[in-house]
């Protein structure tokens, strides 16, 4: 057998070696590097995504055992190496996007996705080019709220893919990557992989604003995004009650510790206007969002009323801002978009901006 043929059988064999966390074989993952086959002597490297990989030895043994069993192999040498993914940060990403807005909350269920959708729509209706990234990998709800049927995104050259389009918005979501109703069950490295794809492989075209709907909490996705995406600013959504405010405060502190500028606080489900008396009922207490903003000296952007048409719009796939221009929620979202846009302009105009992205090669 020629060395060429032998190499092919070895690669076929390595395709049966699975990474237990990523659920893919090490060849497809691109881990196998620098293969050298000469007269039956085989050398190659397996490049993992972290030097601290807990299954490193297990993978090495499996490679050795399987390759040794290939007919024509005399000797085998496997070197385990690792390249940490954070190094990918220095690649230019999202270069055609002028502003990236992260919408976050400490707590789940505060209406973060509803705020994201209506904020994106309000910016779009103001005449801006707007994209919306549903980074809530585990509970993607943006397609539903915008009435986009689940279908795989259209692919382009070089692993790129195109966002879905609805109401003039460009949208990517993890929901498009799985079958309707099926959960995505993923461990950390795959989560990072999906976010990385959203950042690097989407053909957004030119955008004035990219709104990123983050999952609740302060976890993997948030950190990956803050490390790899040049986020212009973050909006933290809360509801008025204490349990939500406590978590929102953690969200604020997270952005502070990674130095993402805070555009401000939005208080959602602030009050209910009853159709009988026009009185504002503060169902979940009042003033909490404002107090949080004051505590951290960041802007209080707006409060958004609890209106049943907002829920209905979300479920039907027509955001309130399109469905009912006269709704008090529409007024609130329009105000929010204006506030966000002006806060971003303030940040952009800061002459004393830190160096946001640099790379320095050492000499000597």
């Amino acid at each position, binding site marked *: 057998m020629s060395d060429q043929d032998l190499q092919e059988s070895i690669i076929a064999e390595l395709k049966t070696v699975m990474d237990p966390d990523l659920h893919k074989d090490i060849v497809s993952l691109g881990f196998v590097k620098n293969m050298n086959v000469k007269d039956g002597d085989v050398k190659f490297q397996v490049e993992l995504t972290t030097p601290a990989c807990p299954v490193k030895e297990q993978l090495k043994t499996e490679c050795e055992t399987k390759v040794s069993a290939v007919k024509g192999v005399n000797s085998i040498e496997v070197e385990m190496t690792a390249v940490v993914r954070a190094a990918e940060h220095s690649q230019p990403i999202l270069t055609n996007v002028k502003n990236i807005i992260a919408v976050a909350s400490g707590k789940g269920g505060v209406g973060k996705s509803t705020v994201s959708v209506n904020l994106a729509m309000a910016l779009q209706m103001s005449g801006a080019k707007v994209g919306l990234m549903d980074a809530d990998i585990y509970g993607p709800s943006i397609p539903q709220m915008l009435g986009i049927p689940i279908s795989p995104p259209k692919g382009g050259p070089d692993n790129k893919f195109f966002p879905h389009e609805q109401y003039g918005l460009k949208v990517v979501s993890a929901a498009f990557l799985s079958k309707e109703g099926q959960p995505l069950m993923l461990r950390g490295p795959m989560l990072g992989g999906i976010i990385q794809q959203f950042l690097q492989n989407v053909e957004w075209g030119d955008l004035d604003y990219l709104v990123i709907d983050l999952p609740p909490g302060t976890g993997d996705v948030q950190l990956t995004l*803050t490390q*790899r995406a040049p*986020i212009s600013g973050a909006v933290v959504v809360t509801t008025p009650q204490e349990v939500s405010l406590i978590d929102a405060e953690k969200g604020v502190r997270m952005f502070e510790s*990674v130095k993402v500028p*805070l555009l401000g606080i939005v208080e959602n489900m602030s009050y209910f206007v009853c159709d009988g008396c026009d009185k504002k009922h503060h169902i979940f207490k009042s003033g909490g969002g404002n107090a949080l903003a004051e505590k951290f000296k960041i802007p209080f952007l707006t409060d958004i009323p609890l209106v049943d048409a907002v829920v209905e719009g979300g479920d039907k796939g027509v955001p309130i801002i399109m469905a009912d221009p006269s709704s008090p929620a529409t007024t609130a979202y329009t105000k929010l978009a204006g506030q966000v846009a002006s806060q971003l302009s303030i940040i952009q105009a800061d002459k004393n901006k*830190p*160096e946001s*992205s640099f790379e320095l090669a050492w*000499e000597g």
Partner: protein
Amino acid sequence: MSEEKSSGSTGPAPKNIKQIDPTKLGITWTDGHESIYAVRYLRESCPCAHCIDEWTGVKRLDPSSIPDNIRPTKLHSVGLYAIQFSWTDGHDTGLYSHDLMRKLCQCLECQ
């Protein structure tokens, strides 16, 4: 990542980062402060989980294990809050937050 308290998004950040000579790094900060670092000292101060025990905070890196001629190969920004160094000994897992860099400043005023 184990971030402790932060000085907030208003804390100083590097405005200009440059190599001064083969063993010294210089940073000019947004508040006007000028820092100078010996690169070996920065390698010794690596905050990564290999060099500092993540749970106890005890230093695991033996400074004598670092080659005398240690140098960075390159450094780059991580998000808006940190700098990552790659070193000639192959180490590259440390993310030096701006807060940490400021604490490590070796100028006469800070020491």
